[in-house]
């Protein structure tokens, strides 16, 4: 077989972050090549580079022997590179047929109508050809998203998580579709996918990314056996952490329940994300919420915070029913959220970022100063960065600012969303110590992590989410010694 597509040292930087770093890829004609990696590894950024949405800072892209580096999206599309999108991207007010016709014409099909009919059959939407695309189910829209890419008659198909947000029975249809595209029509496919059973069964080759770099590559069997890959998913962790956790330890008697979720369900539009979540966090605990990408971890935090009102169920915090409260009211009760991706304000200095929580709350200046001082005691590394702007910080420093910002202003309960994302192992360990220190100061913590090993080292208890359902709950120490459960739900 011959190579159709390759990248050489492809890199892009966003400020201090190397989102994709020296990526070498070689794709065989007619193969299905999977790109996997933990959240934030740079997979979608890689796709954006390959399709011209982002210009690389270094490196080359070669397609069918031609250097196509730096071409614009529409130019790459005309060369024959088509993509689908992780977040469904269709023309919602047009009918399914009109959606496909636009793409078929853009792809210079000799007979666009015939191409539209072929694709309609292929994506199994022939019966819905005249339906307005925006009114279809999530699963049908996902298929249309792939169909739009197909209708341009590409030579290379990039699929960004085609099964995102799909229930298992719909997932099977999509996997069958991707398989058909290669087996019957000879398409070359690069696929980003998180569901490991799919990845392992469908791929010819797999590239594993972490922190923008390729850390492993090979056949499914090779990759599965690679210790580096397991490490990337479970995270490298300082063994002394659990000792530290023990020293600073949980209160011998966990306090009364501080946060309880009872039968909570939540949806984004048509797709239900959370199903009947039961979860309790007691005062003084560190509770970990684990699960693969797309399992519903972030949605759980957003629902607690009041950013996404649940469809059903009750959420209580410290005796108050907070199910329908606004995010501000939830925050006023002492709940802090450190969102995924840190969200440090790039134009503000570290000091200004930390003062933000006070602007609305009328805290006296004396109190403000003492809180800030305490903050810098917890995070001594931030003292000398006090006057630096947010975008001049490293990823680890940004994470510290985000955590510090969430605990100033007398938070009693802190929710952290993937705090270790994109951080070097040494920084992750430091962060873990900070979380322990925060707990020691009397703050209760709910920790969402893909780095399961780190989370389990410092947590008291853990819940495992899968497809929006709690599938496992146990003491962290038990889960730590039980790699079977971890492997089943978290790795491959």
């Amino acid at each position, binding site marked *: 077989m011959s190579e159709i597509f390759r990248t050489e040292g492809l890199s892009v930087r966003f400020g201090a972050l190397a989102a994709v770093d020296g990526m070498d890829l070689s794709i065989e004609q007619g193969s299905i090549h999977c790109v996997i990696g933990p959240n934030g590894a740079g997979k979608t950024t890689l796709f954006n580079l390959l399709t011209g949405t982002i210009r690389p800072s270094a490196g080359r892209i070669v397609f069918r022997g031609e250097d196509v580096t730096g071409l614009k999206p529409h130019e790459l599309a005309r060369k024959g590179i088509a993509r689908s999108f992780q977040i469904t*991207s269709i023309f*919602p007010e047009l009918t399914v047929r009109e959606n496909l016709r636009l793409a078929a014409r853009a792809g210079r099909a000799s007979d666009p109508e015939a191409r539209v009919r072929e694709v309609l059959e292929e994506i199994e939407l022939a019966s819905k050809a005249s339906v307005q695309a925006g009114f279809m189910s999530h699963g049908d829209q996902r298929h249309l998203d792939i169909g739009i890419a197909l209708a341009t008659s590409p030579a290379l198909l990039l699929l960004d998580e085609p099964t995102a947000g799909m229930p298992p029975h719909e997932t099977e249809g999509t996997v069958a579709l991707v398989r058909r595209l290669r087996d019957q029509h000879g398409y070359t496919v690069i696929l980003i996918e998180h569901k490991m059973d799919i990845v392992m069964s469908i791929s010819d080759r797999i590239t594993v990314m972490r922190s923008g770099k390729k850390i492993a590559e090979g056949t499914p069997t090779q990759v599965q056996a690679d210790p580096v890959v397991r490490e990337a998913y479970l995270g490298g962790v300082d063994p002394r952490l659990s000792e530290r956790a023990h020293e600073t330890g949980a209160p011998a008697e966990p306090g009364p329940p501080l946060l309880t979720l009872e039968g909570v369900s939540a949806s984004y539009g048509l797709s239900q994300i959370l199903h009947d979540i039961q979860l309790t966090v007691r005062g003084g605990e560190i509770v970990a919420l684990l699960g693969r990408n797309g399992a519903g971890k972030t949605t759980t935090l957003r629902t607690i915070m009041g950013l996404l009102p649940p469809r059903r169920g009750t959420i209580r915090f410290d005796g108050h029913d907070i199910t329908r409260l606004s995010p501000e009211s939830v925050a006023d009760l002492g709940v802090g959220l450190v969102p995924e991706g840190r969200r440090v304000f790039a134009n503000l200095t570290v000091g200004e970022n930390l003062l933000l929580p006070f602007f609305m709350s009328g805290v006296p200046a004396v109190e403000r100063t003492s809180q800030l001082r305490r903050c810098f005691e917890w995070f001594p590394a931030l003292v000398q960065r006090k006057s630096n702007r947010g975008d001049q910080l490293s990823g680890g420093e940004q994470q510290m600012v985000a955590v510090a910002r969430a605990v100033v202003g007398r938070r009693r309960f802190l929710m952290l969303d993937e705090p270790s994302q994109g951080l070097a192992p040494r920084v992750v360990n430091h962060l873990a110590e900070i979380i322990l220190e925060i707990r020691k100061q009397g703050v209760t913590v709910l920790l969402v992590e893909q780095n399961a090993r780190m989370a389990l080292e410092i947590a008291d208890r853990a819940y495992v989410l899968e497809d929006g359902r709690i599938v496992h709950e146990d003491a962290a120490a038990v889960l730590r010694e039980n790699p079977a459960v971890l492997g089943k739900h978290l790795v491959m």
Partner: protein
Amino acid sequence: MRSILALAVLLAAAPLLIVPLGGYHALLSEMVIFAVFAIGFNLLLGYTGILSFGHAAYFGLAGYTMGLLLIHSALPLWAAMLAGVVVAGMAAVIIGLLIIRKAGIYFAMLTIAFGQMFFFVAMRWKSLTGGEDGLSDIPRKAFFGIDLSSPVRFYYFCAVVCLAAAVVAWRVIHSRFGDVLRAIRENEARSAAIGYDVRRYKLAAFVISALFAAVSGTLYVLLLRYAFPQTMDWIRSGNVVVMSLVGGLGTFSGPIVGATLITFLSNYISFHTKYWQLVMGAVFVVFVMFFPRGIAGYVLEAWRRIRR
């Protein structure tokens, strides 16, 4: 095509309906002239989803160019009109190339800035434009031997141009090009991802709508036989946005309904009170808040329900 036929009948019959009601031909002409402006503007705002607050620049630039040529040269009317439209079109190409890469509010602000530039040139370049006084006594020459001096004849001249403009817009909307414009409005990133050069299509829509504005501007100057800086200030640019919104964005008949209604109302109300702009403002607010899809949008929906 039924809409075009209906429009032709309406345009032909309008004087018989309006004049007995106390209207006059010049008002009818003005309504039709702004309909041309709005029909073109709808291609940009309604179908492509691009908001410009500077289209009066092309309206006024074409009017001034034609006026100057009619005053200072022996060119026939058709040639002076064509020259006005071509000059405005070229200005739109140059400005469009400079700003089309900006999106949303930034684009809208830049269109205001460029629009006001033309306004200030018209104000300051007294030797050419007559400054604040404008260009007066512009001769309304015959069009290919057809005398346009009577208000009735001039109205029918405008009506024919309006019909032609509607036919052109219809063809654009129902072409492959029009399909791509709608696709860009709905999902720009995806349009680029399947291979459309989004920037070129947006530029084309910008220039086409500016050409409609230019045609409308030449007729307006011919109607008044007078060109003045206010023909190209940003308030007039804002007016055409209002007309499009009130009529119904992205519908074929919307801009015609909106332009005629707003022109008629502002004349009628300004006849009764000097606070007419206040009343027009209130009308606009009511539409944006309670009828965001405009008159045509709601009529079309009601029609679809009845047929079901």
